């Protein structure tokens, strides 16, 4: 405040240094702004946690992919894989792949945009009967595994396909054009993805005010003329957006090209082969960069160019619903017929998957056979259960992260807001394979850089709760962190002590013994329990009980990662002894879930305890607060830097993170859209009546955005269940993932088995959607109409 004031006078006398003035003024503004944020602890935590999540699970992995492309595993700079585009022995193949990739992208984008437009126009303007059914059927591909259509296409049009072989009597030899190849991929991608363009264009068409078209009509224009000069130009930005989105979606697709690509390799499959087949991460990363460039270009274009050119979103006012229908029967029935035919094709494709799943040997022995389902539940039960569990667990994570980010983006002003918005969308926009490679690269070893940044940021929040004095804050930060690192050091074995991040400290800390993991854990639990007891003396009033209980809870939760084995191990042992085909697998799987919930990565626990600690420590008596602050900070620091923090590869948590990041854009967008409809004055009203940020959010904002939030959750769950490319590199035998399993079945030729798996997956997603709606309807009366206007 002061700086800004003196500045004012300076600028009057020194008009020359305009740019310097602008920078320092904006710096002063940012500082002030930051202090303002810091005064609202909930907002500060929101910004810090959201930024930490985005940094750890989106920015850092993508950065690692970009960098890794230029370095050999030994760490030497190398352009060898980029150079291959210019080496005679490789160039041909590499350029071919690039060419096919772009051809696939452009044709898929064209086709799916056209088909999406056809459907949107038919549903909105042609008064097609059974609109709801048409809508539901159109969305079916969005909740199916990403290669369901390819699977069906092979069953129908493949070498022993029902149509090709049985109906048309075709026999395939070398040189005969079959479904495998670029045309097959494009066909499958169009059917798989056009539902998204349908949704975009439908939303647009519904928002075009019919009075605009009526105005043109009253000026004497013909219907065709109006379509050309009014409707189409109004939709152009939307169509462009849909086209670009489809282009990216097509390039990112892995399932269809693997299944139906035949001899054609595209970039996504090339990357997959490089990583999974050749185990060459540098090659995978280098090719990822090649794939990332068009994706990022389109993403930025779409965000900053197309969306700014949208005429309709500006008004955003839904019209009275009096849509004008196309009256010419010829036009109307052409659209309806084309749509119906496409729908029949989709139905046929899905029916094929179902029939395929109950057929003995497709094309050869077509007798009814349920053994595939038996096999699915025998061999894949664990994958089915684990995938559903992880997808379900990641759903609220993505949902909560989405709401928090949307809330910050829509309602709050802070520096870096644009970056938070951009990055939160980026994780879902880049091809999943790239994210997957990024996760391997980022989390195979401890990402110390990120852990340190996040630790410092959260520790800042923590110490700012301890004292308002800057010097004292740094002192507490320094002492607490040093003790914490010494504590963490106790957990390091010889190897970590010499090669780990803190190996430079070895001189001063060598005398510390190495503790067994259990001993170390008991030490941490002991400190927390001591703090809890101390809180009974040093915290007063109503807060005493709360602080005590929270500290005890923190200690017990930490302890439970050890204790839980006493529960899960016997359960697993007992489960394995059970008879029957399925029971042992179910029981052991559930045991592993329980263990998972109680054994989060210690670094994540450390971060969480820092945030909780920030709220706890402020309630201590002033003197004791400093001591408690140092000790609590030390425990959190020790937890954060225990062993190899965030070396997550191989654990289920990395799959959870990948799921959440992939569906984050959807939950963010859903929440942003509904938040923007809520008058900020409603939230301010709550504040002015005495509600703090947390109370206002829980009692006012959340109930109002709940319907959109639930829709976001449903979409997230479906996306998790069906995602393949992002987790294909992350899945492990301990945590098998259904989509990856289906893919390997297809590769081994088990088409019917794969079909049965796919049907099971679709049924799970449908059941989850139904359950979520039921639950939401009962618990929150979602669906009863809520007006958002505030008046």
């Amino acid at each position, binding site marked *: *405040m002061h700086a*800004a*004031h003196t500045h004012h006078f300076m600028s009057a006398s020194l008009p020359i240094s305009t740019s310097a003035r*602008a920078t320092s*003024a*904006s710096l002063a*503004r940012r500082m*002030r702004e930051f202090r*303002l944020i810091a*005064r*609202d602890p909930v907002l500060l935590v929101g910004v810090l946690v959201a930024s930490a999540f985005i940094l750890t699970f989106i920015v850092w992995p993508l950065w690692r992919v970009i960098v890794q492309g230029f370095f050999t595993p030994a760490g030497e700079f190398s352009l060898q894989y980029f150079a291959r585009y210019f080496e005679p022995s490789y160039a041909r193949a590499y350029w071919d792949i690039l060419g096919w990739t772009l051809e696939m992208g452009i044709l898929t984008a064209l086709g799916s945009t056209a088909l999406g437009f056809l459907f949107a126009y038919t549903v909105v303007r042609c008064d097609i009967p059974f609109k709801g059914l048409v809508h539901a059927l159109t969305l079916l591909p969005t909740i199916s595994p990403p290669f369901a259509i390819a699977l069906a296409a092979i069953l129908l049009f493949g070498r022993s396909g029902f149509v090709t072989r049985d109906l048309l009597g075709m026999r395939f030899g070398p040189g005969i054009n079959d479904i495998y190849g670029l045309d097959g991929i494009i066909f499958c991608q169009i059917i798989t993805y056009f539902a998204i363009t349908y949704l975009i264009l439908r939303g647009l068409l519904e928002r075009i005010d019919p009075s605009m078209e009526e105005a043109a009509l009253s000026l004497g224009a013909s219907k065709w003329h109006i379509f050309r000069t009014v409707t189409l130009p109004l939709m152009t930005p939307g169509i462009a957006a849909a086209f670009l989105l489809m282009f990216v979606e097509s390039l990112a697709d892995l399932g269809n090209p693997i299944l139906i690509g035949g001899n054609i390799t595209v970039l996504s499959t090339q990357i997959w082969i490089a990583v999974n087949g050749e185990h060459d991460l540098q090659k995978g990363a280098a090719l990822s960069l090649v794939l990332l460039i068009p994706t990022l270009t389109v993403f930025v274009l779409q965000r900053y160019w197309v969306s700014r050119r949208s005429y309709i979103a500006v008004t955003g006012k839904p019209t009275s619903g009096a849509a004008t229908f196309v009256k010419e029967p010829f036009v109307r029935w052409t659209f309806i017929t084309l749509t119906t035919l496409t729908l029949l094709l989709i139905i046929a494709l899905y029916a094929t998957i179902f029939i395929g799943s109950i057929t003995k040997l497709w094309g050869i022995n077509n007798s009814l056979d349920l053994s595939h389902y038996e096999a699915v539940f025998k061999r894949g039960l664990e994958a089915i259960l684990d995938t559903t569990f992880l997808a379900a667990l990641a759903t609220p994570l993505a949902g909560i992260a989405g709401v928090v980010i949307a809330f910050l983006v829509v309602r709050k002003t802070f520096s870096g807001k644009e970056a938070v918005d951009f990055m939160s969308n980026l994780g879902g926009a880049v091809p999943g394979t790239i994210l997957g490679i990024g996760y391997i690269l980022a989390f195979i070893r401890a990402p110390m850089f990120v852990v340190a940044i996040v630790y410092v940021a959260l520790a800042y929040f923590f110490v700012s709760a301890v004292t308002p004095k800057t010097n004292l804050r740094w002192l507490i930060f320094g002492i607490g962190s040093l003790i914490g690192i010494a504590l963490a050091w106790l957990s390091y074995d010889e190897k970590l002590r010499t090669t780990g991040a803190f190996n430079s400290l070895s001189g001063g800390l060598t005398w510390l013994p190495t503790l067994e993991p259990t001993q170390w854990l008991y030490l941490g639990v002991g400190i927390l329990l001591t703090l809890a007891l101390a809180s009974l003396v040093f915290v007063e009033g109503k807060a005493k009980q709360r602080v005590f209980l929270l500290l005890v809870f923190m200690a017990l939760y930490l302890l439970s990662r050890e204790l839980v084995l006493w529960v899960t191990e016997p359960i697993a042992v007992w489960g394995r002894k059970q008879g029957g085909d399925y029971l042992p697998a179910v029981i052991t799987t559930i045991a592993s879930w329980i263990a998972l919930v109680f054994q989060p990565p210690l670094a994540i626990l450390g971060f969480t305890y820092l945030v909780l600690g920030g709220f706890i420590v402020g309630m201590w008596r002033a003197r004791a607060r400093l001591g408690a602050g140092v000790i609590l900070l030390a425990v959190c620091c020790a937890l954060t830097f225990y062993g190899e923090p965030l070396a997550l590869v191989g654990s289920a948590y990395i799959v959870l993170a990948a799921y959440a990041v992939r569906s984050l854009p959807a939950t963010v967008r859903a929440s942003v859209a509904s938040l923007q409809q809520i*008058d900020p*004055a*409603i939230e*301010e*009203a*709550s*504040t*002015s*009546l*005495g*509600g*703090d940020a947390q*109370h206002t959010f829980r*009692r*006012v904002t959340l*109930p*109002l955005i709940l319907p959109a939030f639930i829709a976001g959750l449903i979409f997230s769950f479906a996306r998790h269940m069906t995602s393949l490319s992002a987790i294909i590199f992350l899945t492990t035998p301990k945590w098998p993932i259904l989509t990856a399993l289906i893919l390997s079945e297809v590769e081994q030729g088990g088409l019917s088995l794969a079909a049965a798996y796919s049907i099971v997956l679709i049924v799970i997603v449908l059941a989850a959607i139904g359950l979520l709606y039921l639950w939401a309807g009962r618990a929150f009366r979602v669906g009863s109409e*809520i*007006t*958002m*206007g*505030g*008046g």
Partner: protein
Amino acid sequence: MYLTLDHITKKFPGRGQEGIVAAVDDLSLEIGKGEFFTFLGPSGCGKTTTLRLIAGFEFPTSGHILLDGAQLEQVPPNKRDMAMVFQSYAIFPHLSVFENIAYGLRIKKLPSDEIRRRVGQIMAQTKLDGLENRMPNQMSGGQQQRVSLARALVIEPKVLLFDEPLSNLDAKLREEMRFEIRDLQHRLNITSIYVTHDQEEALALSDRIAIMNKGKLAQLGTPEEIYERPRSKFVADFIGLANFLPAQVQTIQDGRAFVRVGAHSLQVTALPNNTAGQAALIFVRPGDLEIAAETERENILEGKIIKATYLGEKIDYRVRVDETELRVQAAKGARRAAGEAVRLYLPPERAHLIDAE
């Protein structure tokens, strides 16, 4: 003084080349306990920003706000013990009328029978009895605004803030609510700060009015002072209709200023800042100019009627005097027609001088 604004400035980052825009520019004023104080001004004058600064939704770039002697900067909006009534009502759409009104009391964790008693009491006072279980979307605009008012009043805040609360209501309801608000405020004796761009509303409601222009205080005074003795062309123009006649001050004597307007010699009320020899504008309201009889000689302006418009209760004349066009609103009486010459009487006590800009 109860609430003090001490050199408050609020700057917002402007768009593009504009740089930083000061929405509120070095504003200082004091508001007494129990006072009904209004910020009045055109849109963009900084009145709403000032209110939001007081509420704590915005943070001043410089300056201090004090309530009862204590600085408010470090106090977040939810701890300021002020309640705001919003232009858009800002009723919680998912809560019933009862729950809307009880919202602030529940935050204070009052016992439920206490809440019931106080909500019932305030609902009776705001004529909402019997609507406890209604949902907001089942109510009219007027009822919604009553809920919004009741919700703010029930927590008995130190200061009640109004942000153009009546501007979404139709004219008749607006007038009705005006008196109700004034009535309630008097009865409950709550310090109230009101923001509006409607001058009639400001005049009817306020103990004192602050007229704002471009972030600065243009004039501060009672409704009467503001209406009768505007100190600038802006204030005079903003409140009601006004005529401005360029004049040259000759002498000042006994609270009267003797001035020349073209060939006319006139006397008007002198204000303390008037000096002899100064060029100024005579301010007079159209309703205060009278059409004079032939016999009158004192303080007469001679002109020609350009246009006469029938307004129902009165007739609106456009009269050209020298180079200036004056508006005169006269009782119906004898109607004059366009083109006629007319003599206008300027009552000296109803006209005064303001600075020519």
